[in-house]
């Protein structure tokens, strides 16, 4: 038998030609950037959708000039119909949760930096990796197509509860081919994510360089690894669920549809299915999914904070174990989305205990962050501001979760704006802050240029204050019983709350506009930014031991050797108050 030489052999040959270098690239760095770009595209679309939603809520009869070009039926004369509002809502949620929050912090940064941070030349399976991106891209295209078909996008929310999502157009517009495209897109997305997770796990287990024990991996790598493990199981369950939904919709099966339903005056030809089965399958995926969204951000923020504080965390191990516990507990709490769903009320109690218990590792991580800030020497820049802002947002979002974890309180708060406020705080703000922090931190490495610090700080302040202005009021609205997923508020009950909604809408427009400062900064710096040195932040992990941007094979065909953990700060290093992970010099405390 033949084996490849045990010496260093490049995983793949250097890429040649524009297509190989930038389009169908096997290089994990290019793939990471492609995922990031996809995430950026999705978030801009998602943001515009949220603008349309907020606009409609406050001025339901007003025209959005030009919207009738996108949908003659959904927005005749530019006025958003109730069904089109729900379409916008569905696409907003789907794009944001899947194509932004699973893409950018995990597939984006993870693909770029996981191999580098463990000292590998590339991912374990570069071809699968390339495939995973393009599969995800196809999923994105399939989803977006829903905007352009006569049926329009689905109106069943990103959660696509059956039977609404399963009975077709009898229940409303968008539920025919719109829902089909949604189901197909998400099924394809699952496959892309499974391929990606496979790569992350195999790479982390097998391709760590000499000296890189598991416990010497940076927090960001740990977060990506744990996220990949969660993702593997979660998307493996969502895929069957989508297949069964597509079958119910198109093949006449009855997995989720019981007998005797009269929808739109038509008796539906199904029998024996269970709507709760969809909810169980969906949330079994859906809850771990939200941890997929937040864990990479936690890892990135830890990584950035350590560099910015010039001291290690009180205990990186505790953070890692806490992330593992969160990952583990995420599997047994899905029922907390279903407390009043008609599920056995005893199950609701059972689910509430692990849900409340997740508070413990989440609090541990937060206290470690806070406690580590004591006595630190915090370097304030855009990256660290967003990391610090993340802590604030994570606290806010996490605490509102504490209310919802209790079934008795959930009786009152379920399906109100309180829930919407909670998940936007943790996902829509905190996780995004993690992405921003990572971007400002790693842009110099990825692009070889520095971003503009002034613009970065301006971006931070507008976003930090702006997102609090948008999402804190959601909680107040929820407390008075403002119901969610309503396209307009037509009751007298709601009239005194409209000024709050107006405030939110205006804050949303301003905060959204501020994001263009970031986009401008990204693009301008990419071409005109000051050239970046290899280690602009005096940081220690392996990505800073290579030029900016890194060469195609990362470590020049050699395997770096790692001598200690990645967070040697506040020590007497030969180059300053830090010692790099691949430096053999001894650690001398200050």
């Amino acid at each position: 038998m033949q084996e490849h030489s045990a010496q260093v052999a490049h995983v793949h040959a250097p890429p040649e030609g524009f297509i190989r270098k930038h389009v169908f690239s096997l290089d994990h760095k290019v793939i990471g950037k492609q995922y990031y770009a996809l995430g950026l595209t999705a978030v801009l679309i998602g943001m515009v959708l949220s603008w349309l939603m907020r606009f409609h809520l406050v001025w339901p009869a007003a025209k959005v000039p030009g919207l009738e070009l996108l949908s003659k039926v959904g927005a005749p004369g530019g006025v958003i119909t109730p069904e089109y509002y729900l379409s916008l809502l569905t696409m907003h949620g789907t794009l944001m949760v899947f194509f932004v929050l699973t893409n950018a912090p995990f597939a984006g940064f993870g693909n770029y930096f996981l191999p580098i941070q463990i000292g590998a030349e590339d991912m374990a399976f570069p071809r699968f990796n390339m495939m995973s991106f393009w599969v995800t891209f196809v999923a994105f295209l399939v989803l977006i197509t829903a905007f352009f078909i006569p049926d329009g996008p689905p109106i069943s929310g990103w959660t696509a509860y059956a039977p609404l999502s399963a009975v077709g157009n009898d229940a409303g517009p968008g539920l025919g081919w719109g829902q089909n495209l949604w189901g197909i897109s998400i099924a394809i997305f699952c496959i892309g994510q499974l391929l990606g997770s496979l790569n992350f796990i195999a790479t982390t287990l097998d391709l760590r360089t000499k000296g890189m024990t598991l416990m010497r991996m940076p927090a960001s790598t740990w977060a990506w690894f744990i996220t990949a493990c969660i993702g593997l199981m979660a998307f493996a369950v969502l895929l069957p669920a989508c297949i069964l939904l597509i079958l119910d919709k198109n093949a006449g099966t009855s997995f989720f549809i019981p007998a005797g339903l009269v929808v739109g005056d038509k008796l539906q030809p199904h029998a024996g299915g269970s709507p709760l089965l969809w909810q169980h399958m969906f949330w079994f995926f859906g809850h771990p999914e939200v941890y997929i969204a937040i864990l990479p951000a936690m890892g990135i923020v830890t990584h950035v904070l350590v560099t910015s504080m010039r001291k290690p965390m009180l205990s990186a191990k505790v953070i890692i174990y806490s992330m593992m516990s969160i990952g583990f507990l995420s599997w047994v709490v899905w029922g907390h989305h279903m407390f009043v769903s008609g599920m056995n009320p005893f199950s609701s109690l059972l689910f509430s205990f692990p849900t409340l218990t997740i508070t413990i590792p989440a609090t541990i991580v937060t206290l470690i962050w806070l406690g580590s800030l004591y006595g630190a020497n915090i370097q304030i820049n855009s990256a660290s501001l967003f990391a610090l802002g993340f802590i604030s947002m994570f606290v806010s979002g996490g605490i509102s979760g504490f209310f919802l974890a209790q079934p008795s309180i959930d009786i009152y708060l379920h399906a109100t704006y309180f829930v919407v406020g909670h998940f936007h705080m943790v996902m829509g703000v905190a996780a995004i802050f993690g992405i921003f922090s990572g971007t400002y931190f790693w842009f110099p490495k990825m692009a070889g240029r520095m971003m503009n610090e002034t613009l970065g700080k301006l971006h931070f302040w507008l976003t930090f204050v702006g997102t609090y202005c948008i999402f804190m009021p959601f909680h107040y609205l929820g407390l008075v019983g403002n119901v969610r997923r309503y396209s307009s508020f037509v009751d007298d009950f709601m009239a005194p709350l409209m000024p709050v909604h107006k405030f939110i809408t205006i804050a949303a427009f301003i905060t959204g506009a501020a994001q263009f400062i970031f986009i401008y900064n990204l693009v301008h710096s990419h071409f005109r930014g000051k050239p970046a040195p290899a280690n602009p932040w005096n940081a220690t992990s392996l990505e800073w031991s290579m030029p900016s941007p890194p060469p195609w094979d990362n470590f020049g065909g050699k395997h770096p050797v790692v001598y200690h953990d990645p967070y040697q700060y506040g020590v007497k290093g030969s180059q300053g108050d830090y010692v790099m992970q691949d430096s053999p010099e001894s650690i001398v405390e200050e």
Partner: protein
Amino acid sequence: MSTTTFPSPPSTAPPLPPNGSGAKVAGTRPRPGGHGQSGVWVGIFAITMSFAAFTSALFVRQGSGDWIHVVVPRLLYVNTAVLLLSSITLEMARRAFMNSSALDSGALRNNTLRWLGITLVFGFAFVVGQYMVWRQLAAQGLYLATNSNSSFLYVLTAAHALHVLGGITGLVRLSARLTPRQITLRSSSFANTAIYWHFMGVLWIYLLLVISIRL
């Protein structure tokens, strides 16, 4: 904070004994080809999760009253035997490939290809056989949407058959790498493809049990 460029540490540093938290220069050396195995097991785990999801859907669905027992065509058991046989022949192929006493690479290749070919035939026979089972079910009046039992029968067998097709693709790739001029096939690649194929058999046994007991 200064952003002065510090010189990168020299890549050939003198081997100072590290101390403190860097006690031993321990840890893994990357294994070229070794990560294929992690990949296969991770993939198997994901596929298991998917079928676990299908199974739990089945159990939940059984809670409702309309459960009509399906008489499964005998052909299904014949197909089972074919699939299990294919695992045996694949193992013969793998042994032929690993057999270092066959110093003549031509004989090595022919032997391996022979067994691989038989495995492929069995693999195709299985998939075609499953299709014929569906035809027999249809002849009984059992289609995908006829009742919940038949729905699951079709979905489980179709999902499994799709994954078997994936395995067949892997086997074809193995065969292609046993080209006349130079064998470019790692033994680990062979082993990993074999693990996946055997898993198809194991998974099928499980599905067969579920089908025959619960459906």
